[in-house]
């Protein structure tokens, strides 16, 4: 082996060892690196007790309710399997919307049934499109859902061709 080849081998070996070390460290730290946990994790008792943590999920459609004082907001965060009721007093970010991603920091209250948030952040998805396109996509999903419902109602669900609804991207896809 020429000295040059020896140095190349050394560099490659060094990088491989470094890569393995980094992988092991990151794997060990996995739960600490995650920014938030899901309502399912909370339901499974994985939430830290008496300590602040972040939950993430989707704001359930139709769940946002403002209290009489005008600044307290209640909404449900869902990962489509489990729900968690969240109470928050303060200003919500622009992108906070029903059916969109959200990350909230706070503590569990009332024996773990309610999450009192001190900070609510909107989690944006990776879709960028003009309003007309967004409407078209929404309409298409609506039509697909209607068609499916109709097909099921007429008992032809088994023979109906696959509707676009099956190809629909889950809004939860990001970060899960």
């Amino acid at each position, binding site marked *: 082996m020429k000295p040059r080849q020896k140095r190349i081998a050394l*560099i490659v070996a*060094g990088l491989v060892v470094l890569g393995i070390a980094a992988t092991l460290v990151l794997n060990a730290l996995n739960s600490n690196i995650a*920014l938030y946990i899901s309502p399912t994790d909370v339901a499974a008792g994985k939430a830290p007790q008496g300590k602040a943590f972040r939950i993430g999920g989707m704001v359930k459609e139709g769940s946002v309710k403002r209290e009489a004082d005008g600044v307290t907001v209640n909404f449900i965060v869902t990962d489509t399997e489990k729900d968690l009721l969240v109470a928050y007093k303060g200003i919500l970010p622009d992108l906070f919307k029903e059916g969109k991603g959200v990350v909230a920091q706070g503590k569990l209250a009332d024996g773990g049934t309610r999450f009192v948030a001190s900070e609510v952040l909107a989690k*944006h998805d*990776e879709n*960028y*499109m*003009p*309003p007309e396109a967004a409407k078209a996509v929404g309409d298409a999903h609506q039509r697909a859902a209607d068609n499916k419902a109709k097909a099921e109602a007429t008992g032809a669900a088994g023979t109906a061709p696959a509707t676009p609804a099956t190809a629909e991207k889950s809004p939860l896809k990001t970060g899960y």
Partner: protein
Amino acid sequence: MNNRLINWFKYASPQSFYPLAGKMIPWFVALATVFGLAGLWLGMVVAPTDFQQGEGYRIIFIHVPASWMSMFIYLVMAFWAALGLAYNTRLSGMMAQALAPTGALMAFLSLWTGALWGKPMWGTWWVWDARLTSELILLFLYIGFIALQASIDDPRRADKAGAVLALVGVVNIPIIYFSVKWWNTLHQGSSVSLTKSPSMAILMLWAMLLMALSFWMYSIAVALYRARTIMLERERGTEWVREVLQQEGAK
């Protein structure tokens, strides 16, 4: 075969690379300007408003190209560093040194524009999620590389030390890139990647790609310019530098 090798090594010496770089710089500057103007026009004037974020989304035309460049420049820097360690070529260290400030600038731009966007959209300037934190580490790696090289007087030793740091830091690049896939982060996933079709309106995508090309060309132009200066400085005692200076003085 032999012929090609000789050609490659010819340009590995500062002496012959210096005039070549000088000839290439105006081209890259021109391309950066053309792509930049086209990208800005397409991005700021033509591209439609986003359905959720309104006009605020237009920061991606700076943010995404800057982030891509910050990662890519680091890879190129590490490549030169490895080449320098393995082959002991003079040019490698100079190229790595020339790339670092531009990389640092891109990482800073990425973090800064991200913060400006994050406040109105997410509701916070900063959050310690995996993507943001690893990009911050990248900025520190660049700064560390620049500081380490600057602190050692002997350029050969400075190159070696810098190269080791650059190579160790390379492990951070896949972490940045895949962080949004591997962990729960506040940062959204990639809109554009090699493995799936982009989830972005086509005009927005074009504007972003043009801006990315522009950043690319700018980075090359600036790095070459800086490399030329470093060559003159490091080889100031040599015959070819004296000749170059005499020629340029005569103009």
